[in-house]
């Protein structure tokens, strides 16, 4: 541990702990997942930074969206994202979640993910190398330090709009709204 950080730890332990203990939802949403096993195993060992995959979204705070998102997956992504406890962070891989990437004209993949769920950061490349994943994570650390990784807050504030966008694509959603008027 860095000695300079002790002050930060005392000031806001929750924030610092969130930084150094990313529990990733293990959800193979796209082809970028192929670089996740190398980065969590021997060669790159993400556990050094406290990053481990967990089995259920309830225990996670980082959601890696690894590549293109088909409409069927989008429903699963939204459900998984809503199950995660706050604070939670989303990082999307590659160009596909930004604007559709090479699937710009595919009838089954959405073109920009941040219309449906908030995304805190994007990692460039198809697919990003394990090093790029780590760079993405360190950037996320900086964002958390500056309180700019506020995707979950935006989701709470603009939930009505996000829900409207989700319903525009997926039709009537078969789960109740996460935030109603009372618990906002």
């Amino acid at each position, binding site marked *: *541990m860095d000695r300079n950080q002790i002050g930060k730890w005392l000031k806001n*332990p*929750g*924030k*610092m*702990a*969130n930084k*150094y*203990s990313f*529990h990733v939802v293990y959800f193979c949403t796209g082809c970028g997942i192929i670089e996740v096993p190398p980065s969590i*195993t*021997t060669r790159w*060992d993400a*556990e*050094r*930074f*406290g990053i481990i995959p*967990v*089995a*259920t979204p*309830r*225990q996670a*705070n980082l959601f890696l969206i690894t590549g293109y998102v088909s409409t069927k997956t989008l429903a699963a992504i939204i459900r998984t994202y809503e199950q*995660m*406890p*706050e*604070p939670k962070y989303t990082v999307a891989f590659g160009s596909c979640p930004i604007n559709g990437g090479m699937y710009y004209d595919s009838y089954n993949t959405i073109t920009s993910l941040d219309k449906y769920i908030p995304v805190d950061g994007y990692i460039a490349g198809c697919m990003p190398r394990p090093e790029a994943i780590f760079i993405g994570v360190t950037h996320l650390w900086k964002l958390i330090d500056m309180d700019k990784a506020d995707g979950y807050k935006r989701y709470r504030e603009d939930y009505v709009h996000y829900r409207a966008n989700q319903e525009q694509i997926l039709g009537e959603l078969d789960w109740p709204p996460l935030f109603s008027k009372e618990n906002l």
Partner: protein
Amino acid sequence: MNIIALFVSPLIALIAGMFFLGLSRKISARIQWRYGPPIYQPVIDVIRSFSQKSITHGKFFDFGIILSLSSSFVLILFLPIGKLCALTSGGLIAFLYLMLMGPFGIALSGAAAANPNSSIGISRKFLLALAYEVPLLLVLLTVMTHYHTISLVEIVNIQANSGWAFGSWALILPGIAYLLILPAILGMRPFEVVGAAQEISSGPIAEFGGKHLAFYTLQHALHVFVGIALFVDIFLGGWTFFGLLNPLAGTVWAVIFGIIIFLLKMTLVLFIGLFVNAVYPRFRIEQAMQYLWKWPTLISFVGLIIVVLTK
């Protein structure tokens, strides 16, 4: 003395338990050619879990995990940690009862969550407990018969005079049986059937998040501590180390060094468990039960007969 122990021993157990969790992650990583997380990583994880918003699934969901954690704390009070023991009266019988409360609380929570994965995990948890309780009971019965006492403190004190139980020929078989079921008690591979992440999404704790997860991690740390500490107390002579502490007898230093020796012995036992953990896959539940009812039960039963006949 007892009043101090009342506050100090849960603290020691908690810190040591978290340390063991961190150590096991680090050692596993080293076996897998990895660098591994820092040893204090579980502490960070717990702080993070506490800082997260938790979702509750009803009163029983909250109650179960609290019950589990508090019973684990009470359990610690009955356990001699070195020379420290808060409640000397209950002995092994109370200990055995309380040891079941931890899994029971988790099961209660898991059942309240109404997740199919949790319910499968709970049924597995009870089956596994059923499987390892039989040899465990036999082992403890043998020890109680051999030493003519049900008090853990007594057992440790006798060992201080007559040598470790694991070294005496009469108790070597129960010792081996306990070592064989230790992974099952700790939930390590090859008996990692309850929290099998790849099969049933961590089983009973599938719905645990936020504070519930933090409580679970603390409970797990205590559980690991208790499982190993019981072995050290009964078979490895607790705080004793070939009369090393005799010159210090009666001083505070004896207590402190007793605890240190105790923890070192526990680390040694943990290492054995970790090495087994690293090279085996997990059993299926019926295979685990078959195994536990066969070898450990047989060995401990033979041990019991030997002790009964020779006394």
